[in-house]
């Protein structure tokens, strides 16, 4: 093949020149051998450079070679020599046949040649498309799609600069990706603008700057195919995103309705008590004695606290759901937290035995005081709910290497092994919901809080009961607490 880098007119002229030179060379060689070879054989030999010229330099050169060979053959080898005159009828026939054969050969070879080139071009095109669609397959976001498209386009079309612009979705800015990266785009308008369209409408545009040579029809066709591939990938990404959004919405919708039905029931119970007690006290029909008044007022007070705890749990749950539960950690003494919770729960735990052992020499633990109170409150409440009056609730704490292990156990019935993990799920209950009060959120809040602290919580059946166990790290950002020097003595 000829160097195609030469500027257009030179390469063109060179091809014809080479064809003429080949015929001249062949003529020289055949002239030397003219005594050995007969006229028909010489004609046959001339077909060789004609075919060669076509194969190497195209149909035009082949036809030029044919004409030159015809003339040279006539001039040098047909009697009378060194003229273009022909005397013998037979020679005229030879010349005509030769010319026809030469032209036919060059055309055949030329056609084969160009269809080979075309086939090769199509194969390249197919390869490029295959590579593009492989690269785009599985992409679910428009940014990587824009990037891959820009890279492939630049490689295939050799553009100086190009840009893939993707239309913004609602409340977004448009995605732009240019290649090569870091090179500012030309100020001029792009040489080619190809829209990325699908049935949904315009999704984006490809901007291409390539001034040195125009796009060939094949390139233009390939570019359009690239654009439609890109548009399809974008549409796929959009559909996938819409589907994910729909799933998330559906899930949160399901959660909300579960929450609502659970909560409205839970909220009504204390409200009913408060309403009944308050209206009783207001009504002038009954003269309440002092102790009855006291009971009614205590009921209002207790149920208000109950409502407050419910609302607190709901808020915690929504924070955990939204990933907004950020522990405000401080170095704390666990015994202090447990002590505070037990003091506040004294009234509700009256009918159970509490057996609490928190060693004196426990290291400080980096936790959010208020959230840890919530964990203990929920675990104790849960134990109270599922165990009969008069049984024991045990709290044990120990430090083990860099972990603090806390166990809250009760003498409740065992939970089937397959439910042990699931009791920390939202709204999950082992017992039928109408037999036990509660939103079904307490344990999942514990799980959320413990995990936000980098810890772990699980449940175990004990030989004589049931236990919640959680582990908390004793280091904060990898370090133990910085304790003051040994207390000074006076």
């Amino acid at each position, binding site marked *: 093949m000829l160097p195609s880098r030469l500027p257009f007119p030179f390469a063109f002229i060179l091809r014809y020149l080479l064809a003429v030179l080949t015929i001249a060379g062949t003529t020289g060689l055949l002239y030397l051998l003219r005594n050995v070879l007969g006229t028909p054989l010489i004609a046959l030999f001339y077909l060789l450079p004609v075919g060669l010229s076509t194969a190497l330099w195209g149909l035009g050169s082949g036809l030029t070679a044919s004409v030159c060979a015809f003339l040279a053959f006539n001039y040098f080898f047909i009697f009378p020599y060194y003229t273009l005159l022909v005397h013998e009828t037979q020679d005229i026939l030879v010349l005509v046949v030769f010319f026809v054969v030469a032209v036919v050969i060059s055309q055949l070879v030329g056609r084969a040649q160009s269809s080979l080139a075309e086939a090769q071009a199509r194969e390249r095109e197919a390869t490029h498309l295959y590579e593009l669609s492989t690269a785009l397959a599985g992409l679910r976001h428009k940014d990587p799609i824009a990037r891959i498209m820009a890279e492939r386009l630049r490689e295939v079309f050799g553009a100086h600069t190009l840009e893939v612009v993707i239309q913004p979705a609602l409340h977004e800015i448009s995605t732009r990706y240019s290649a090569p990266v870091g090179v500012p785009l030309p100020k001029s308008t792009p040489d080619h603008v190809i829209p990325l369209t699908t049935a949904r409408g315009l999704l984006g545009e490809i901007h291409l700057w390539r001034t040195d040579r125009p796009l060939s029809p094949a390139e233009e066709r390939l570019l359009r195919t690239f654009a439609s591939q890109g548009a399809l990938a974008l549409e796929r990404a959009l559909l996938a995103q819409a589907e994910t959004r729909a799933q998330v919405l559906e899930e949160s919708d399901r959660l909300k309705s579960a929450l609502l039905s659970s909560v409205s029931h839970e909220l009504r119970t204390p409200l009913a008590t408060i309403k009944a007690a308050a209206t009783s006290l207001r009504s002038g029909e009954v003269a309440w004695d002092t102790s009855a008044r006291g009971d009614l007022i205590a009921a209002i*007070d207790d149920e*208000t606290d109950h409502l*407050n705890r419910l609302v*607190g749990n709901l*808020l*915690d749950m929504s924070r955990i759901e939204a990933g907004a539960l950020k522990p*405000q950690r*401080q*170095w*704390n*003494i666990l*015994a*202090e937290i*447990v*002590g*505070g919770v*037990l*003091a506040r729960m004294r009234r509700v735990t009256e009918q159970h035995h509490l057996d609490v052992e*928190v060693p004196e020499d426990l290291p*400080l633990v980096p936790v*959010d*005081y*208020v959230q840890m*109170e919530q964990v203990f409150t929920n675990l104790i409440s849960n134990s109270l709910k599922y165990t009969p009056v008069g049984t024991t609730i045990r709290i044990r704490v120990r430090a083990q290497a860099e972990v603090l292990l806390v166990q809250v156990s009760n003498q409740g019935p065992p939970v089937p092994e397959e439910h042990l993990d699931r009791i920390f799920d939202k709204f999950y209950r082992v017992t039928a919901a109408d037999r036990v009060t509660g939103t079904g959120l307490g344990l999942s809040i514990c799980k959320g809080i413990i995990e936000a602290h980098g810890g772990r919580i699980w449940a175990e059946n004990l030989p004589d009961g049931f236990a919640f166990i959680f582990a908390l790290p004793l280091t904060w950002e990898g370090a133990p*607490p*910085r*304790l*003051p020097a040994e*207390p*000074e*003595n*006076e």
Partner: protein
Amino acid sequence: MTATSHILVIDDEPQILRALRTILTEKHFRVTTASRGEEGLALAAATPPDLIILDLGLPDMDGIQVCARLREWTQVPILVLSVRDNEHDKVAALDAGADDYLTKPFGIEELLARVRVALRHSAQATGTKVTVIKAGDLVVDLARHVVTRTGAEVKLTATEFKLLAYLAANAGRVLTHQSILTHVWGEAEADHVEYLRVYMRQLRKKLEADPESPQFLLTEPGVGYRFLADE
């Protein structure tokens, strides 16, 4: 505290305003109410109250900002109302100059106790200082540096006494971790809550009958500590 102490309540909930007005009037306080921050600031300037009860969640401006604006010109005691899980705002309000806080929902006894403490402190600020603080069987004599429990002297280290003295001198009021650390250990140690935890445990062991459920040295979850003295 005079029988007709004037209390300004700034809260945007009409029900809370109604309840507080009824209860506080019943307890012989003179009550003014405001439902917005700007209105509250204007009222406080027009007829200076003896105490301000301020809700942190106001519609027009941040309660913490109201605290800071008030502190630009008045030392009137400020009692802030906040909700659970908002320890950060409570601490910020205390740092901005509030004297105490209450978590909603609260019992009325608790509110009245805080009101009394705040009024007493503002009275003391202008009058003579109390130097002997009593809490149950515990007596802290700030002037003589002596602490006795059921009459017997309790040996405290210098740091322990400094810590107890600061809490006792502010008896009834909540003190933030940071303010205690700064006062006892200095500015540089203001973030080392672990110091405070260790020393509070020691103090409780020496002074409380049951260190696990303290009666005088109370923890304010996520905020700080409070020394509860006899009234």
